[in-house]
């Protein structure tokens, strides 16, 4: 019984001594190089993020939106207005032409004679 207790205590002691006997680590010779590489890549990612996040200017974006809306509404206006105005202009032109040149004095033949 005593022997087993002694054995157990010895095992406990040996197990706990592992922490005292742990060797002091010397870092891998590439540790610093790997670290610098990680920091470099982190910096590059940060620069990209800043370029995206820092480049975003709400005022500029709003102005852009307004410009797009302006252009879109102008285009809509002209697309709807242009055919009507063309028709209006052309009909006005036809009317004035018929008035100017439709008089009996300028006709090549006498309509009443033709009717006969």
């Amino acid at each position, binding site marked *: 019984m005593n022997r*087993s207790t002694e*054995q*157990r*205590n010895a*095992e*406990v002691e*040996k*197990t*706990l001594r*592992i*922490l*005292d*006997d*742990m*060797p*002091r*680590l010397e*870092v*891998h010779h590439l*540790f610093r190089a*790997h*670290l610098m590489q*990680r*920091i470099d890549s*982190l910096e590059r990612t940060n620069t990209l993020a800043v370029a995206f996040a820092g480049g975003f200017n709400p005022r500029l974006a709003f102005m852009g939106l307004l410009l797009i809306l302006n252009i879109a509404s102008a285009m809509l206006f002209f697309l709807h207005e242009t055919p009507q105005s063309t028709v209006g202009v052309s009909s006005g032109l036809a009317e004035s032409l018929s008035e100017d040149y439709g008089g009996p004095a300028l006709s090549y033949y006498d309509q009443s004679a033709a009717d006969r």
Partner: protein
Amino acid sequence: MVVNTCYRFVFNREDAEDLAQEVFVEVYRSIDKFREESKLSTWIYRIAVSKSLDHLRRQKRKKRFSSLKRIIGVDDPADSIAAPDHDNPADVLADKERVAVLQEALDSLPDNQKTAFLLSKQDGYSNQEIADILQTTVPAVESLIHRAKKNLQSRLERHYRSNN
């Protein structure tokens, strides 16, 4: 010192180096958040401790799936624990087993007891420095170390009693 601090927690050289890298990256990333309320070294060791504890938590979660891992043939993380150098394979095996037993006993301790105890075992940490890292007082650290030793002793005794 940072690598050795992490090594005390994770018992594995590669993991300790990876953690130390993470610590320095974190230091680089958040150096502007350092408020100079403590020494820079204390702040860095605090990050090292928290990263190491996070790693142990992740490892604990992984261990829950160890049976599944064994089925699909992936190595158990416990296999990567470095055992002290011996020529005799029986000694190597015994040491490996002891390391695993010790790690299990340490895992069962609360984080603050584990941290205080492991830092006290490392050269270069005074109780005052441990208190600064844990943001507590020296008597509290002494009490944590004492309780950790007591808990470890009883857990290890229980383990070897059940295995006899």
